[in-house]
């Protein structure tokens, strides 16, 4: 149980109640600084949990999952900007799991306000709430929070380390600190002589840290410019170490096989044939499955196939239709949330033309390029584990519990990740490796999931049904009334991660629908939680990954009913609600030449979504030739407040678009007898180089708060594609994936 769990009442309400309750009783624990977990080598020093200086060089700690989003580079740049070191002068490491590395903003994402209307006061409250993350062991990478989390704290860490190093130099030179300056990893004396940080670190570590004001944006050397990524060279030479690449002396390789009927038990198994196969050491019973340990991964996988096993059934409806029937049943019960209720949707103005539509959005797998895996070594008193993960403290604790050790006896190394998208926040793949290691003490073992195992044992993006009714009058939207039913991903995950029952409105079910910056006078959104227990989790952009589609598709239907241009219709519906949202729509209109001439046999659609603090608008062009529809071009405009690394932002928004379009075109997970029907890429197609559009991006910096970029590009890309297909064909998209209803090029 987490530390907060011990001091709070049983039920932790995510939302406004947590602000009052959480902050009030935890004041001391909340504000006390967490201890510095770094252990410098002989002759070295650590100035704060993020700066480690040894005689052989400077190491910056970026305790965030590097899963492709470039956070190690941006995080290091934040520190380096103030510390006055060049990025090619430093090493960037993930560092150990530690309370000092808690995520200071992720809980603020759970606030049930709309986000774009958050006052400075509410922002400050969000920061207070964020500090509770320290107690909850929330060292998490997700929710596009890394940049806002590190923006001030890391520059402050760099500035403080710099001034403290200068103080050490000042004392050595017996001159005033104000007469010193810093440059490229050294303090420069008035006579021009250089004192390297590496020579000053030990002395500096003996001083009280000095706080210093942050430099103004106009003085930035690194931030605001594209930085070469610190992980690039390793990744293009095959020398980067993903967790699947960890190699230890004497290491064994293992394969995992679990009951494909999710939640079902293993009734019996016969491993006699498997144990006789070449290279096989052991078959280990894991209750809901088994692992085969062998001398290489493929031999282990082959032997796993040779085990005869009888699986128990799953406690889920037997067909995909029955599962969606269960989701639809949720509408008959009480709403879990009504996070927006403006005006009166039961009384639209006289003369309103009403329409309605229902949308079905499937369950989705993450399908990270690197399948789940981890490596572990258990010695009886200690567990060492190597895993690419987004939630190190909680995962360390879960591994400790699984093998019967104290958390302090577990050393977790967080490696680079071959994609995360939310999947690697889950403890399961690390825990299974730990359990296998416990059975073969003193032997390091790497447990690799086959792609089939990975796809059939995900924590899926929940399937959802969205029902909308709405109305237009005089060419404008006057009413929108949405109901969304889905399994609640947040309540299930919080129970799984923290052992805390979560009550209250689940924002993740309605995110991307209730909090859109539109001034539609009658605007209500209600969420319903489906009574299903399929494993669900966080998938790039979470609730907005389905709401950002259905809400926007319905707006497009309203625009059509109003006989209005879809982009102008959205602008009119926004009114003066939130200027940065209007500005991204206007930017994408201009960037795409929306009002200009269109080629024959093409269609265009616009999509807009505000999520994770970023308004993002996307225009997609589709083209028909020889009975096939392709996606030649896409244009994106997004406002991130402050653009720290333009090149990285281009990668993030392009990648988020590709991830969204892949899902929108081709992806769904259906369950028969509680088992996933799609097992590998041939059943779960994605965008390829031949189907990827050419992308143009414009980044705006009009909003006052800095925001992260990993997720907001996904929903509007999916929405815009559906709207473009309508423009081309006259057929409304009402479900995903679109390949079921449109002849998409594969």
């Amino acid at each position, binding site marked *: 149980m987490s530390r907060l769990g011990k001091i709070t009442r049983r039920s932790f309400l995510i939302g406004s109640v947590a602000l009052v309750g959480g902050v009030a009783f935890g004041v001391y624990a909340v504000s006390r600084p967490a201890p510095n977990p770094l252990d410098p080598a002989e002759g070295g020093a650590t100035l704060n949990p993020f700066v480690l200086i040894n005689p052989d060089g400077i190491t910056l700690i970026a305790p965030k999952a590097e899963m492709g989003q470039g956070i190690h580079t941006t995080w290091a740049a934040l520190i380096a900007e103030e510390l006055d070191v060049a990025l090619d002068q430093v090493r960037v490491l993930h560092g150990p799991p530690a309370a000092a590395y808690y995520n200071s903003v992720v809980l603020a994402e759970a606030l049930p306000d709309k986000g774009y209307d958050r006052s400075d006061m509410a922002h400050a409250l969000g920061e207070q709430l964020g500090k509770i993350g320290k107690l909850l062991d929330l060292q998490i990478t997700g929710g596009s929070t890394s940049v806002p989390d590190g923006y001030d704290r890391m520059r402050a860490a760099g500035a403080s380390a710099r001034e403290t190093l200068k103080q050490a130099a000042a004392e050595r030179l017996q001159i005033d600190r104000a007469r010193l300056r810093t440059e490229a990893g050294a303090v420069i004396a008035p006579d021009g002589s250089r004192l390297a940080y590496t020579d000053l670190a030990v002395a500096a570590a003996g001083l009280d840290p000095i706080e210093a004001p942050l430099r103004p944006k106009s003085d930035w050397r690194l931030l605001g410019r594209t930085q070469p990524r610190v992980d690039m060279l390793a990744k293009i030479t095959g020398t980067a170490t993903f967790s699947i690449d960890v190699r230890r002396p004497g290491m064994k390789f293992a394969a995992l096989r679990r009951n494909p009927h999710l939640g079902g038990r293993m009734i019996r198994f016969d491993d006699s044939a498997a144990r006789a196969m070449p290279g096989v050491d052991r078959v280990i019973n894991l209750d809901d499955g088994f692992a085969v340990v062998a001398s290489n991964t493929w031999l282990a996988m082959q032997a796993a196939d040779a085990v005869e096993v009888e699986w128990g059934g799953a406690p889920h409806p037997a067909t995909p239709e029955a599962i969606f029937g269960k989701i639809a049943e949720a509408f008959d019960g009480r709403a879990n949330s009504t996070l927006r209720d403006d005006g009166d949707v039961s009384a639209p103005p006289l003369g309103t033309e009403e329409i309605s539509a229902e949308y079905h959005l499937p369950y989705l797998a993450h399908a990270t*390029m690197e399948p789940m895996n981890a490596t572990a070594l258990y010695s009886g008193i200690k567990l060492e584990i190597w895993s690419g993960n987004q939630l190190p403290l909680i995962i360390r604790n879960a591994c400790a519990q699984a093998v019967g050790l104290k958390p302090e006896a577990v050393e977790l190394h967080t490696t680079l990740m071959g994609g995360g998208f939310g999947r690697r926040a889950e403890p399961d793949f690390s825990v299974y490796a730990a359990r296998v290691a416990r059975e073969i003490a003193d032997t390091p073992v790497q447990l690799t999931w086959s792609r089939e195992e990975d796809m059939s044992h995900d924590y899926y993006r929940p399937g959802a049904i969205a029902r909308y009714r709405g109305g237009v009058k005089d060419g404008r939207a006057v009413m929108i009334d949405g109901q969304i039913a889905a399994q609640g991903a947040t309540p299930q995950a919080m129970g799984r991660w923290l052992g805390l029952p979560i009550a209250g409105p689940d924002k993740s079910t309605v995110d991307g629908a209730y909090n859109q910056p539109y001034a539609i006078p009658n605007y209500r959104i209600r969420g319903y939680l489906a009574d299903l227990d399929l494993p669900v989790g966080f998938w790039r952009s979470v609730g907005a990954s389905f709401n950002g589609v259905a809400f926007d598709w319905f707006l497009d239907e309203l625009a059509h009913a109003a006989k209005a241009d879809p982009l102008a219709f959205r602008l009119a519906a926004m009114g003066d609600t939130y200027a940065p949202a209007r500005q991204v729509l206007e930017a994408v209109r201009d960037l795409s030449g929306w009002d200009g001439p269109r080629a024959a046999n093409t269609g265009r659609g616009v999509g807009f979504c505000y999520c994770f603090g970023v308004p993002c608008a996307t225009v997609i062009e589709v083209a028909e030739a020889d009975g096939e529809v392709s996606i030649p071009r896409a244009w994106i405009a997004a406002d991130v407040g402050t653009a720290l690394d333009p090149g990285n932002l281009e*990668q993030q928004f392009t990648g988020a678009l590709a991830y969204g379009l892949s899902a929108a075109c081709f992806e769904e997970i259906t369950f028969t007898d509680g088992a996933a029907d799609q097992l590998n890429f041939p059943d779960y197609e994605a965008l390829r180089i031949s189907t990827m559009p050419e992308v143009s991006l414009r980044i705006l910096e009009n909003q006052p708060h800095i925001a992260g970029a990993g997720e907001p590009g996904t929903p509007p890309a999916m929405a815009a594609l559906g709207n473009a297909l309508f423009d081309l064909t006259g057929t409304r998209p009402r479900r995903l994936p679109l390949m079921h209803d449109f002849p998409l090029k594969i």
Partner: protein
Amino acid sequence: MPTTVTVNGTRHDVDLPGDVPLLWVLRDELGLTGTKYGCGVAACGACTVQIDGEAVRSCQVALADVWGAVTTIEGLGRPGALSALQQAWQDHQVAQCGYCQSGQIMQAAALLETTPAPTDAEIDEAMQGNLCRCGTYPRIRAAIHSAAQMIKEG
């Protein structure tokens, strides 16, 4: 009986059953982890290596069937001694998570061997078997064009 394979110019005697795919020989036996496992069924390209200059899916080639000299990403170039393609990948900052990139680069290297100045359509044709879940395709395309230019200019 051990099987002999030549990888990146070095001969190895491998004592494994002949049906073990080359991918797992490279990764688990020879410690050449630059070549990646993504699907095991020829659907993602993460495991792409070259045999006698031809791009192949190493998850589909049994050890006993390896018909020529194997080149992996580790043999194409090293940090400090990058191949032209890797240099172009560096210049265009192609990789995100990076997991697919060894396969992408090995596939692109084989393309440039046969087609020194590929068109966009030829790039599509050659590279469409290589999945990238991070969506780095536009930069992959740009980097291939740059590398072609670099090689042409010597």
